[in-house]
């Protein structure tokens, strides 16, 4: 029982980081969004697995919330944005794809080096996985900084949020439900706002790339 619990936890935490890296790897916006969906589902698996092991009903509710918001709602909204232009791609990132993958590898190693110092304070099978969450946060920031497409930027933001959520699940068995509710709905709201923003961006300047919007219009 307890080995399957740890095994599932390791797999799901690994999947969260893997999907973060995959968003850097893929170019088409649709593929990036489906990686985000995978990450949301993996994150909720982490929460549910912890909840079932520690018999915490609040955490179970948090897991369900994460599944609905990050596994279903946000990817569906982003997919709707992407479908307006199905061939939409992250065509010219500021750092090209091979270099950003190597950079991601460096960030993963960095977060392992830093993260193990933190987890050494209270080592256990669960907390030892926390560097994976830290790495997801760093990869998210990297994506936020180097990508130009509006959807990629929002995906980077959600990666940061998911990484923080993974760390809180692993280190503290989850924040109170109300906090997670607030954070998740906040991100959802950002995505909804972005959807309107994208429509008006296309209307005004016919582009999805935020970096090309440099001047203010009247």
């Amino acid at each position, binding site marked *: 029982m307890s*080995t399957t619990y740890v*095994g599932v936890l*390791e*797999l799901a*935490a*690994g*999947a969260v*980081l*893997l999907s973060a*890296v995959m968003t850097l*790897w893929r170019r088409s916006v649709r593929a990036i969004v489906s990686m985000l969906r995978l990450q949301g589902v993996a994150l909720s698996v982490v929460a549910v697995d912890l909840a079932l092991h520690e018999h915490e009903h609040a955490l179970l509710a948090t897991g369900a919330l994460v599944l609905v918001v990050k596994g279903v709602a946000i990817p569906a909204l982003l997919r709707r944005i992407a479908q307006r232009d199905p061939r939409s791609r992250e065509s010219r990132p500021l750092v090209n*794809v*091979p*270099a950003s*993958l*190597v950079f*991601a*590898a460096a960030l*993963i*190693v960095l977060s*392992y080096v830093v*993260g*193990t110092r933190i987890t050494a304070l209270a080592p256990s099978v669960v907390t*030892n*996985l926390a*560097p*994976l969450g830290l*790495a997801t946060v760093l990869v998210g920031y990297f994506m936020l900084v180097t990508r130009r497409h509006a959807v990629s930027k929002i995906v980077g933001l959600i990666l940061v949020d998911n990484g923080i959520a993974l760390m809180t699940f692993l280190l503290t068995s989850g924040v109170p439900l109300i906090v997670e509710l607030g954070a998740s709905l906040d991100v959802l709201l950002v995505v909804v706002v972005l959807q309107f923003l994208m429509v008006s961006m296309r209307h005004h300047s016919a582009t999805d790339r935020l970096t090309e919007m440099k001047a203010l219009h009247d």
Partner: protein
Amino acid sequence: MSADFWYGALATLIQVVVVAFGGPLLVGLMSKVKARSEGRVGAPVTQPLRDLWKLVAKERLHARHASVVLGLAPTVILASTVVAVAISPLVSTRPWLSSSADILVIVYLLLTGSAAAALGGLDVGTAFGGMGASRAMTIGALAEPALLVAVVALSIQSKTSNLPGIVSATLAHPDWVLGPSRLLALGALLIVVIAETGRIPVDNPSTHLELTMIHEAMTLEYAGPELALATLGEAMRLGLLFSLVANLFLPWGISTQRSVMSLVAGVAFLALKTTFVALGVALIEVRSAKLRLFRLPELLAGGFVLSVLAVVTGLVAR
């Protein structure tokens, strides 16, 4: 001469023979699967073996400006692969000299073969040979770090870099196989194997279109028995890499006891497992198009990052 020695020697002999016939058969199987899924009947699975037989009987022919390198290269390709096959844990975990089957040894034996192939391609000085050699070396240089780091991930878990040691440790701990570190390393290794054997997202083995070919360009100058040696070497290399992937991730069925029956079972299981790997690779080939050469670093950097992930999750989840 102890019984252990004879068992090891027999295992080595069986491995070399099985891979020598199995490698070309795997190549044939993959082209058969591709043909069938494209709605063609396709050549029989034994076609690569028949081609080799046909080539052996032909005349030995060199270009006018060829140096001794051109004649040596096919022998080196085949010999390095045969040594790697002989000591790797394919049919048995204890073939002859298996204590020296460190992963670095195997990687550098394979690298010797690639270097020989590239030198052979360069030797005559034709444009295609040089182009193929340069491309093959570029891909090799990008795939090599991913391969090494992926195997480091495996050896962290089993605390040895000796291949038979890794296989035995996996047999003793079956729960490792589904761990995140293993799965990530498997993904990285599959990318490397596809690159090293020149299958579709990286190279198209069935094309002779001069602008896209990599592997074929290097063997363009060979004829007759030398072409047979080089082709057999490449096929055995494919068989070796597929068997290593199969045995490192699904080691069951490999012979660990000192009996002839277990060796027979080992051969049968190896055939079964490599067939599955070949079917998987053939399906990838059917479903995907060849990548542009300039997009290849993306794929291989992806493999590298997967292997780094495998190492870090392996260290974290310990």
